[in-house]
């Protein structure tokens, strides 16, 4: 017997639970303005999230998946993405989308049950939400393939949850990314839960990161409560994707500080006290502590940041609530480039019924 291959899984953390910086921290750790921007984005994310949950509770929004406690993952990615990169989200990635140019009002529109909430979709920048778990990973590989063939030098970032890593799609996407050397970065938001199923029941793999070994691609675990580590490692992976046309998988360790969605009740399955314990590691406070200790974030600034976030969110809510309803016939308008004659009668019927409804 001889050993023919060897693998190691690194774990990156630059700002620890006590907000103490690591010795090998990147330059970002000293870039106060940049850190304050990250902090601001996390505050906006949390503010929008709280608001969305409240809107749902009052019947003004559909089922909504909270991002609470996972702000560092989404904001760190959003910050690392450049305008030239392509982002392919799963359904929980609202903060990243916002940083990558999507208006918060569109996000609310989507969760309000309106297809026009996907109007940001753009083959050169952001793709729409994906609801079937894991499926986006495969078309992301297709998008990366197209960009590689077309020599656009763009990097593609795609995300999924810990539960999604059990889908064959995850593995198949990494496998083709490895063999075709695709400019593709996979980020796994390991928030420890897939609805009621804990991470520990998804896989016997010690880390989710190591799943990349199966595809021969680089893999790392990152402290997903440390926005600095998230930003830095995603930025490195994107750079490698652009420069070397290689894929990376990054597992972000964090904790879902909320029910799965507003339709869920984690009280049924989450052990009491765990959430509170995990809260000690949550990202917003962690960065705030650091910035305060550095003396670069004053209580007044925090107030200003909070107030600004509220304004951004309120404006989005106002815009969202003011949206006029879409036409029923919209369900046919974009089914095909041109509606085949075979469906014209149905279209006409739908239109007629609806015009009665409006007049009657």
């Amino acid at each position, binding site marked *: 017997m001889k050993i023919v291959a060897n693998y190691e899984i690194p774990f990156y953390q630059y700002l620890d639970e006590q907000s103490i910086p690591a010795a090998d921290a990147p330059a970002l750790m000293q870039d106060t303005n940049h850190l304050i921007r990250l902090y601001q984005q996390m505050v906006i994310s949390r503010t929008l999230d709280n608001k969305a949950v409240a809107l749902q509770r009052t019947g003004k929004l*559909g*089922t909504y998946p909270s991002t609470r406690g996972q702000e560092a993952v989404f904001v760190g990615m959003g910050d690392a993405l450049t305008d030239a990169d392509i982002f392919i989200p799963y*359904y929980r990635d609202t903060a990243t989308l916002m940083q990558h140019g999507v208006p918060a009002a569109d996000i609310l529109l989507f969760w*309000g*049950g*309106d*297809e026009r909430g996907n109007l940001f979709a753009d083959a050169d920048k952001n793709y729409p939400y994906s*609801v*079937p*778990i*894991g499926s986006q990973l495969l078309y992301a590989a297709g998008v990366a393939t197209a960009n590689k063939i077309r020599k656009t030098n763009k990097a593609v970032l795609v995300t999924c949850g810990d*539960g*999604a890593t*059990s*889908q*064959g799609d995850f593995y198949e996407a990494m496998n083709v990314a490895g063999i075709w050397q695709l400019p593709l970065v996979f980020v796994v938001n390991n928030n420890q839960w*897939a*609805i*009621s*199923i804990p991470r520990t*029941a*998804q*896989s016997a793999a010690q880390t989710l990161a190591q799943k990349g070994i199966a595809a021969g691609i680089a893999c790392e675990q990152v402290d997903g409560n440390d926005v600095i580590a998230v930003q830095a490692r995603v930025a490195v992976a994107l750079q490698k994707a652009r420069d070397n046309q290689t894929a990376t998988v990054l597992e972000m360790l964090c904790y879902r500080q909320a029910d799965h969605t507003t*339709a*869920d009740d984690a009280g*049924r*399955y989450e052990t009491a006290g765990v959430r509170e314990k995990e809260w000690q590691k949550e990202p917003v406070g962690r960065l705030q502590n650091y910035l305060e200790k550095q003396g670069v974030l004053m209580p007044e600034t925090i107030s200003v940041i909070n107030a600004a976030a509220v304004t951004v969110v309120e404006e989005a809510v106002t815009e969202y609530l003011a949206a006029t*309803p*879409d036409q*029923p016939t*919209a*369900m*046919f308008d974009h*089914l095909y480039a041109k509606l085949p004659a*075979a*469906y014209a009668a*149905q279209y006409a019927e*739908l239109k007629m*019924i*609806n015009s009665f409804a409006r007049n009657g």
Partner: protein
Amino acid sequence: MTEMTLVEAINQALMYEMQADASIVVMGEDIGKNGGVFRATVGLLERFGIERVRDTPLSENMIGGLAVGMAMAGLKPVAEFQFMGFMYPAMNQIINHAARMRNRTRGKLHCPLVIRAPYGCGIHAPEHHSESTESLFAHIPGLRVVIPSTPARAYGLLLAAMRDPDPVIFLEPARLYRWAKQAVPDDGVALPLDKCFILRQGTDVTLVSWGSLMRETLAVADTLAANGIAAEVIDVATLKPLDLPTILASVAKTGRCVIIHEAPFSGGIGADISAAIAEQGLLSLQAPVQRVTGYDTIVPYAKLEKYYLPDETRIMAAVERVMA
């Protein structure tokens, strides 16, 4: 006797049969501690333990494959898919193995499994939570496809599905999960799996439907009755195999038929029924059969879904056309 909802009746059937048959294993995503996203499996874990009530990793293809293997190896898996729109990854296992294993092995192995999934729109859920693609399964030889529309039929049909020695796709109308309560005696009595149910006798027109639209269909029958028109109402319930004789006998009597389903028009099972009526009952037909169905488009997100779903107005208009 307790009145219960359709989803509670599902739960009662699972409880009954797990107690009666030790080979039944219930599995799926979030069906254990969480009791299922619609609460259909509530209490099973506590009563039957984790060996027989298995939360799975998040993979539908895997769930399909596990079910096939467990079924061949002597268990009776009852797998829940969270929504019908998430069943597609399991099609390969369902079509290429579950439906064929008995035939492939000339009876030496078989696949007595049940796949349960909520289906249909109208519950204001996100995209892919609103499918009615029962046609896809009803076309596959070797499968049975069953859709209940009341608590009592959900109970009796699910028992039958669990006792059937072949694979059954059991689709539950999510819109009716908690719609109306009904007394459902926990008597362990199964209903037949290849019979339509005549819900109302009538002589003037036959209304044929299944699943979630039985609600609107019955409401229309009520309105018609109030207007002196006696509609015969049929709940098809089992879409494969299709009990055409019951439907044909009814149409032979009434001479008029409206078929109502939620799935898109093209390739809907309404076409099979309408074609059979015309081919076999041509002479007794007094008016062309009418079909009221979902449109040939994608079910819209929550805000517009009500415009997709056939409603009483559309059904009534069709009845008027066949009565004209």
